[in-house]
């Protein structure tokens, strides 16, 4: 792949250089040095060297705020993905957050001979079955908890609550003991080689499992399987995000909830929202719980604001400011909690609350809850058991 291919594939050559993308980019808002328009301009001028060495190349959140509003219909996030692949070939990479441990972990998982103790979190209360046609794709949640211990995040609860919900619907799904990272972050930071390996390993494991349907609780895994895997491997299964799955069940009247008296707001993860256009199923699920009042933030659905960091890369003061802005939007609604469907959004929001920085910023404390944990609570019993 060359830069010219990237320009063609993303229709970047249509760019009118109007600057609308920069005008609505959340990164540009806090980092005036970053301009999506200039990135495209560099490419169009053939300044490949400038582009791949631009320190801002990894700042894009690939949140798709710009592209749907682009008058020339340029797929800028995809252009970033392709340009980063070129940069990666040149040995460039973004600033890896958390000392790069997450990236190391992802690449580690790309090794075929890796032996994982991946299902240690399962307890006696959870029913899984090797015979099931349904696979629950867990994602990286089991690894996140120790890394983000300081933020108090419990991403494993998402996995446990998902199982609890499936079990309560009479489904004992299969979970893969050798599941790998979906590779989302590697793909979006230009490491296409390791992404391909992960995709192939997952595809092989799924084929061997012989399931017909895969349910995801992570918005990123879902996006990756749905949109990116088809370019690399063949997955012959029905794919569904758990919010879509639950929304269907609720419509059929197969789920009923006990009352939870709470005012909530919903944060659209970029991958589920703008990437896949799934805005209403999570809201339908939330609103079907009696007693809940769902209020919307100023920016919602297609206009939603990103949580501020993607692929654990270039997480800087700008990311922090975006996060704070989003949390202030949530607080302005008067909601008690912010619901989301992406473990990373949760991690980032919690991080913003814990690491307030040296100067005391505005009060951004608000409970962050994953959709499945809310649903599990509404099903009764204690959450995450």
């Amino acid at each position: 792949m060359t830069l010219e291919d990237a320009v063609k594939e993303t229709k970047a050559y249509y760019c009118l250089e109007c600057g609308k993308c920069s005008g609505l980019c959340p990164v540009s808002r806090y980092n005036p040095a970053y301009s999506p328009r200039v990135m495209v301009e560099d490419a169009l001028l053939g300044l490949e060297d400038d582009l791949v060495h631009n320190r801002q190349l990894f700042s894009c959140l690939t949140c798709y705020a710009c592209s749907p509003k682009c008058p020339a219909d340029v797929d800028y996030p995809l252009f970033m993905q392709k340009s980063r692949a070129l940069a990666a070939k040149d040995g460039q990479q973004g600033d890896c957050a958390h000392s790069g441990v997450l990236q190391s972990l992802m690449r580690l998982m790309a090794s075929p001979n890796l032996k994982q103790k991946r299902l240690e979190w399962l307890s006696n209360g959870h029913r899984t079955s090797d015979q099931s046609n349904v696979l629950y794709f867990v994602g990286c949640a089991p690894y996140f908890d120790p890394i983000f211990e300081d933020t108090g995040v419990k991403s494993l609860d998402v996995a446990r609550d998902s199982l609890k919900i499936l079990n309560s619907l009479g489904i004992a799904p299969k979970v893969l003991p050798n599941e790998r990272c979906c590779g989302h972050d590697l793909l979006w930071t230009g490491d296409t080689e390791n992404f391909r390996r992960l995709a192939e390993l997952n595809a092989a494991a799924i084929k061997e499992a012989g399931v017909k349907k895969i349910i995801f609780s992570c918005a990123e895994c879902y996006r990756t399987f749905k949109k990116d895997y088809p370019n690399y491997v063949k997955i012959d299964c029905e794919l569904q995000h758990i919010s879509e799955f639950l929304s269907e069940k609720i419509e059929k009247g197969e789920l009923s909830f006990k009352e939870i008296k709470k005012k909530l707001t919903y944060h659209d993860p970029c991958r589920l929202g703008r990437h896949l256009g799934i805005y209403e199923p999570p809201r339908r699920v939330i609103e079907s719980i009696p007693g809940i009042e769902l209020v919307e933030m100023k920016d919602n659905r297609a206009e939603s604001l990103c949580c501020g960091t993607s692929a654990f890369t270039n997480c800087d003061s700008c990311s922090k400011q975006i996060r704070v802005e989003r949390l202030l939007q949530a607080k302005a609604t008067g909601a008690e909690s912010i619901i989301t469907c992406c473990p990373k959004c949760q991690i980032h929001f919690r991080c913003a609350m814990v690491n307030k920085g040296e100067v005391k910023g505005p009060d951004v404390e608000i409970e962050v809850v994953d959709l499945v944990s809310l649903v599990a609570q509404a099903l009764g019993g204690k959450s995450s058991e």
Partner: protein
Amino acid sequence: MNDSVLIVGGGIAGIQASIDLANMGFQVYLVEKSPSIGGRMAQLDKTFPTNDCAMCILAPKMIECYRHKNVKVLSYSEIAEVNGQLGNFQVKVLRKSRYIDETKCTGCGECAEKCPVVVKSEFEEGKGTRKAIYKPFAQAIPNLYVIAKRGTPPCKAACPAGVDAQGYVALISQGKFKEALELVRRRNPLPAVCGRVCTHPCETECNRGKLDQPIAIAALKRFVADYEVSMGTEDVTPVPRTKEEKIAVIGSGPAGLTVASDLVKMGYGVTVFEAMPQPGGMLSWGIPEYRLPKKALQTEIAGIQKLGVEIKLNSPVGKDGLTIDDLWEQGYKATFIGVGAQASMKLDVPGEELEGVYHGISFLRDVNLGEEVKVGKHVAIVGGGNVAIDAARTAHRLGAKEVFIVYRRSREEMPASEEEIEEAEHEGIKIHYLAAPVKILGKNGKVAGMECIRMELGEPDASGRRRPVPVKGSEFVIDADMIIPAIGQTSDLAFLPKKSQFQVSRRGTFEVDPISLATNVPGVFAGGDVVSGPATVVEAIAAGKRAALSIDCYLRGVPLPPEEEPLPTVKIEDIDTKDSERKNRVAMPTVPLKKRAHGFTEVNLGLSQEMAVEEAKRCLDCGICSWCRECEKACQAKAINHEMKEQYLDLNVGAIVLAIGLDLYDVSGLTEYGYGRIPNVITAMEYERLTSASGPTAGVLRRATDGKIPTNIAFIQCVGSRDFKNNPYCSSVCCMHATKEAILAYEHHPGTKSTIFYMDLRAVGKRFQEYVDRATKEYNVTYIRGRPGKIDANSNGNPIIWYEDTITGETKTFETEMVILCQALIPSRGIRELAGILGIKLDEHSFVEIPDKLWRPLDTTRPGVLACGYVHSPRDIPDSVAQASGTAARAAEVIAGGV
């Protein structure tokens, strides 16, 4: 070759082409779909780059065109069909109905003064209002008014008597109570009665009910009737008798009273024969006092008597004494039978003869006539209609300890009015659904209880309601010492002679012609419950209206005129309700529960004047025109014709010029710019109206949020144009248009700072660049290169623009007081349909396709059909005018045989 030319579209291009061709001696037909020629230019305040007053240039041209002896302007008209070919086109033109006689209207505007319906003005881009009868703008040509009718309002369509409900609601909203009552009385002689007891199908169909709650139409009608009484302004002038014939009406119920009052108004003599000592029929003794006070009823009837109707009480017409045949001998030329349905139907169960069984109608009659009626302690009413509810609430008032209703179906099927059921429950009356009596139990000849059986609902029966089926073995006994069966009524036809020649149905009702209501006996008509079986007051009134018309025709020996086909009923989807604030109906004040139990004072107290006006203002004006007919009264020239029909006109022309101009692109889809969400973000055309001296604010630009005159404003270019997802082309005029508006802002309010966000400034025209330079140097205008990404608003209502300055590459925010979006301009919205009719091709953006752009730049794909102005391609006014002159020359050329 035909020497006439058809110009489609009366904007500046169409006007110029018309004048040019007319001056060359051609006969020109100028067809304009709106009520006035002038087009978009008429909406503009000034033109660039000279800042001339747009109307000052345009108006003389409009007049010249309209008055030219060779031009025939067909305004408010559309092209329906085009056949033939170059040199000989046959064109069918639809002349839409203005509902105003063009030859009589003087444009004086008295009608609009009186019109109660206020709607948004299209000409003012929704920033100003107009009336339902209107002239689009002061200088409109032709100088004629037009009535906007969207269709028949559902309230009117639903009313059996066809009362113009929207009309009187509109009049009430303007405080015109007297006029409102007059309007009701045109179709309904009993407003005080119907305002209280009508089942108001109008409210059921009211479109407002689909938003929140229907308009309280009945309560409003009652208000105007009561208002008249309370003001002591009842002003009934007897109608002079102009016709010799007199008519006998048997029965003084709603049907009889309507026939009588209508015929008296036509000049006939009418005598009403009433068997009872009080007039009103079922209204008088069937409906309890607490729902319809006798005083209100008698006042209303007295008004009808004052018109000239004679009512003879205690005068039964029947087999003993006075018979129908006697009426002929007494000189009556026609008879109307409206005796109603007054006999209670029997339950047909054992024990019905026991003491303590009191049939509903007799019960209500005896109470109403003031006879002493003793009620039991436990009273059971059988039935689910309004009579059952009336009997229950009456028994409750007479001191029964416990009153309950037994009904064999469920609440859903219950025929009584919902509010009556609610009031009954409110007063403590219990309703046992899905139960039916099997036997009335007795002890010493008196009622001691009632055996009932449970029912369940089966398949729907002939009435469409689900048929109740007894559940075997589910019998149970209820304790009761009085049973009031109220399961329906039939007509008592005992008054007819034994060997009557009248055709009577098996149900005991008169067989009549459904249109004329004539019985089989010539000169005898019948209507109301005696024909339909027990029905509503308003249906009886409707029958009375029909019978009066029919009797008049019969007496004059003319056939009944065919009924007018009404305009289609307006649906909620036809109405733009996005700006209608959700607001429930005004609650009707009622007598507190404690005070009700042992009295018969009226429960519903009626609306106050303020409440009535507030309630009436909720009306959505479904029909736009409300048929209140105030314009008819105001028009000295007698130009109004609410029944006017559209017409077709056939033309023969040699060539056709298409010049239908542009429409404004709807920018609310570009959500990032906040139009419709942020009040201080407006469109350029809205701005144009708001700064125009003739506009809704007389040229003073104020912010929607706080009324402040903004001194810092921003314009955004290319909103919806040069955009692949909206319109990829450049709209051509916006850079200069914005510059002009920025200059105007400064001129109106010196010191105003304007900022124009642009992609690249297109100043490609004579003196355009100088215009831009002047703007920056003399008028405090700044141009920023960059297409904004997003507009937010802060707590002051100030828009905050997020943008990248694409010259410096910096991303910034810009706070301003008002944002003006220069929306894309698109070919006029009707172009697709019109192109189909004209048989011409359009390009992918709906501009006219020009196959030979170099050598025949004004020719469309069909020979003899030419195009100019914006619909040809994006362009400004001078270009459109020049092109129009070109088209005129080309039309002359092709008619002369040039290719």
